[in-house]
């Protein structure tokens, strides 16, 4: 039951992009097409889950026992950066086809604040490891969902006649706002 609440809250109520504004850069930058959005979502799901597990272990078995939690920011970002690099190398060796699908998106993820954000949120919310994993997966699904819906809207926008000044990013942001408005309907669900 508790897991169900975490999942619904992370996907719909506190959607990471539309309600918490994490990962807006790829949301605006990569979401031109539905297919690339799905690829990006897959890469984020993968890295976010791994990063949450590793940072949770580091926080609870290294930083807290040695009382150096003020180093959290530095440690986490280094872990995530090296993790991304490692995933890239391993994927290249083990599964070239998966690497082909996710490869281009991996380097972009280091600067995706959603990954670091979820790692820190998991610590702040005092989740245990299992809850952290569920939270990370659900958040990544929420991210993918928002990206795919938004990409669908943008594909349609390309065929519309938009006033000159609003063309491109401005109209995309305004439509993202309307999408966020729709997601606000989920408020109070859990």
């Amino acid at each position: 039951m508790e897991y169900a609440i975490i999942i619904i809250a992370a996907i719909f109520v506190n959607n990471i992009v539309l309600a918490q504004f994490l990962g807006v850069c790829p949301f605006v930058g990569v979401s031109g097409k539905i297919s690339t959005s799905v690829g990006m979502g897959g890469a984020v799901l993968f890295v976010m889950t791994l990063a949450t597990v590793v940072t949770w272990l580091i926080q609870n078995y290294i930083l807290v026992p040695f009382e150096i939690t003020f180093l959290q920011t530095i440690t986490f970002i280094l872990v995530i950066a090296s993790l991304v690099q490692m995933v890239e190398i391993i994927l290249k060796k083990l599964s070239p086809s998966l690497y082909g699908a996710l490869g281009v998106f991996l380097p972009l993820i280091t600067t995706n604040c959603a990954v670091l954000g979820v790692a820190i949120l998991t610590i702040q919310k005092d989740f245990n490891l299992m809850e952290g994993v569920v939270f990370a997966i659900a958040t990544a699904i929420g991210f993918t969902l928002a990206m795919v819906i938004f990409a669908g809207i943008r594909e349609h926008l390309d065929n519309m006649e938009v006033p000159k000044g609003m063309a491109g990013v401005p109209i995309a942001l305004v439509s993202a706002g309307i999408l966020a408005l729709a997601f606000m309907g989920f408020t109070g669900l859990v």
Partner: protein
Amino acid sequence: MSQMKNFTKGFIKENPVFVLLLGLCPVLGVTSSAFNGLGMGLATTFVLVGSNSVVSMIKNFIPDKVRIPAFIVIIASFVTIVELVMQAYLPVLFEQLGLFIPLIVVNCIVLGRAEAFASKNSLGSSVVDGLGMGLGFAFALTLLGGVRELLGSGALFDFKFIESDAMLVFVLAPGAFIALGYLIAIINRLNKKNA
């Protein structure tokens, strides 16, 4: 390029938010009021100036291959300084900005300036560049925060103009996207006129 031009380019012409579209997460996340926007902007400015100056000082000692991780460690150190200082002296602001303070590390502007500018230029111009870009970022955040606060709660820097709540949606999440969209459209138009 003269130092003056180097300093002012961050405000309108190469404004990191309105023109380069970098670092949008904190831009949308913390600008529910002008004061929050200003605080976040100044914190980012400090990190930018600090990381830019250190990077330009040690640019000749860092091997090319490990430069990005090295930059990230430098940036993360300055972010930690901001975190600790703010927690001690500005606890209310720290509470409101919350998660977005540690997330300055992954703000693309900071790493972007370190890589694109500070690693190639002298200490002096790197500091000026960091200051200009940072203040341009702060300017954008304050402007967006001001617009949202004015439309959403009828106030500016906590000074109430009207008593009742105005269009509350502008303080909430959707308003952030919509207000930023229109601001970018206006800035685009201004830039075109100047050019």
